[in-house]
């Protein structure tokens, strides 16, 4: 079943048409990697799906629910918007951890704040907060940082910060987790630890969309690859096909550049 459906998505910045009629869908538990040269619109695509940017055209559905419809004029309530927001998670290229909080608080802060929406929050506050903390610790353990729970971001390496930010995104239980070049702000020797965490997530069938320049990793971990070029999906297919038998000229050029 398609967990993510994107239909006819379009986005312009002024006169620059960055996304042109993008349509694709993604099944539950699948991993999709988005590749393409700089400026092809990969980040913009992720930002539109995660509501950081408002698309001009198109529809986005997650779990069958319409989370975005450019043609729908009605403005949703802030609470409704937040609920839909939580269907998707996003891991940023430069982590964007909250510097004044320890690793564990970074992971749990948003979840703690979301608890307040529960009707019985006041009565069971202690229990809920304890549960959230436990969940946060578990996630930190999963990304291999249990012993760094009380460290502040500045005390962590880039790779560790990025792993905290992955745990932070997971703590909100997103249906789909998006990554925008999660390793490109890291020293090459630190990319491995992030890729390892992502690989682990594939084992538990986390649905993921990964924008990346790590071609061998994309090939290795993805169920499908989407090649973007100048705002359109130029080619889409299984990793073997994309990397071994690319159809479009552009994709062939793009892949050759990486093989050099």
């Amino acid at each position, binding site marked *: 079943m398609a967990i993510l459906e994107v239909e006819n998505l379009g986005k312009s910045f002024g006169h620059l048409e960055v996304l042109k009629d993008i349509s694709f869908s993604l099944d539950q538990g699948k991993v999709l990697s988005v590749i393409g040269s700089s400026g092809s619109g990969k980040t913009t695509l992720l930002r539109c799906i*995660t*509501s*950081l940017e408002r698309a001009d055209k198109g529809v986005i559905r997650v779990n069958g629910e319409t989370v975005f419809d450019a043609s729908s004029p009605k403005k949703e309530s*802030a609470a409704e918007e*937040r*609920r839909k*927001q*939580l269907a*998707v*998670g*996003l891991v*940023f290229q*430069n982590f*964007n*951890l*909250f*510097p*004044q*909080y320890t690793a564990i608080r970074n992971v749990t*802060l*948003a979840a703690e*704040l*979301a608890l307040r929406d529960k009707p019985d929050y006041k009565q069971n506050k202690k229990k809920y907060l304890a549960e959230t903390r436990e969940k946060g610790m578990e996630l930190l353990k999963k990304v291999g940082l249990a012993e760094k729970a009380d460290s*502040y*971001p*500045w005390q962590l390496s880039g790779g560790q910060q990025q792993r905290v*930010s992955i745990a*932070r*995104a997971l703590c*909100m239980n997103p249906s789909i987790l998006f990554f925008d070049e999660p390793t490109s702000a890291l020293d090459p020797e630190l990319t491995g630890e992030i890729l390892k965490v992502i690989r682990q997530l594939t084992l538990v069938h986390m649905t993921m969309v990964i924008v990346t320049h790590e071609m061998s990793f994309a090939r290795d971990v993805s169920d499908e690859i989407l090649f973007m070029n100048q705002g359109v999906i130029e080619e889409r297919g299984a990793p073997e096909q994309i990397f071994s038998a690319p159809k479009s000229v552009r994709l062939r050029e793009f892949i050759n550049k990486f093989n050099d």
Partner: protein
Amino acid sequence: MTFWQITLFLLDGFKISVLIFFVTLIVGLPLGLPIAMCSMSKFKPLKAAAKVFVWVIRGVPLMLQIFIIYYVPGLVFHYQLFGQVDKYLLLNYGIEDAGRILAVLIAFAINYACYFSEIYRGGIESISVGQYEAGKVLGMMKSQVFFRVVLLQVVKRIVPPMSNEIITLIKDTALANCIMVAEVIKQANTLAATKALIWPLFYTGVFYLIFVGVLSILFNRVEKKLDFFRG
């Protein structure tokens, strides 16, 4: 006059300086916030108005602003507001200089609110959009992002410029002199005029130095308190 008597006499003036200092902070610190909000507003006319206001207030000497506040009611409305307040409080309560001090307080509060607003604005604008975006994708409300994520980072960034500004403030209180408010330097001048004593004028510096010293220690503490994180 003994040294002790002179000290007490000057201290009487320094109380006024300190009064101006604290009232300016109490009014100016919060007043700076709405001005900062306006100068960051997406509504262009409001933003422009705020920017022009801040530009004028920062572009004109504070001393001139004190004169304007003090004399304008009399010149424009033919009512010497501050003179009347002076007279009223002196006759009824025996409080001296109250109207003049009030004029100084108004000028100081507005002036410093503008300086503070620029510091707030700089602090808020220096926070990366990534912080807001991270909060948003995690489903936080806008107010939660501001109070839980952004605010403390802003505070950390504005402490150094704020401490500079606040240290300048205590020294600026000497400007109240220009409309004959009996702050510490005015008191020293009185001694010079009536007792032919010059040294108390230099002695006033000690009062400022002690006050600034205490402020510096306080700000240092705050900076240390916020040292636990970077960013």
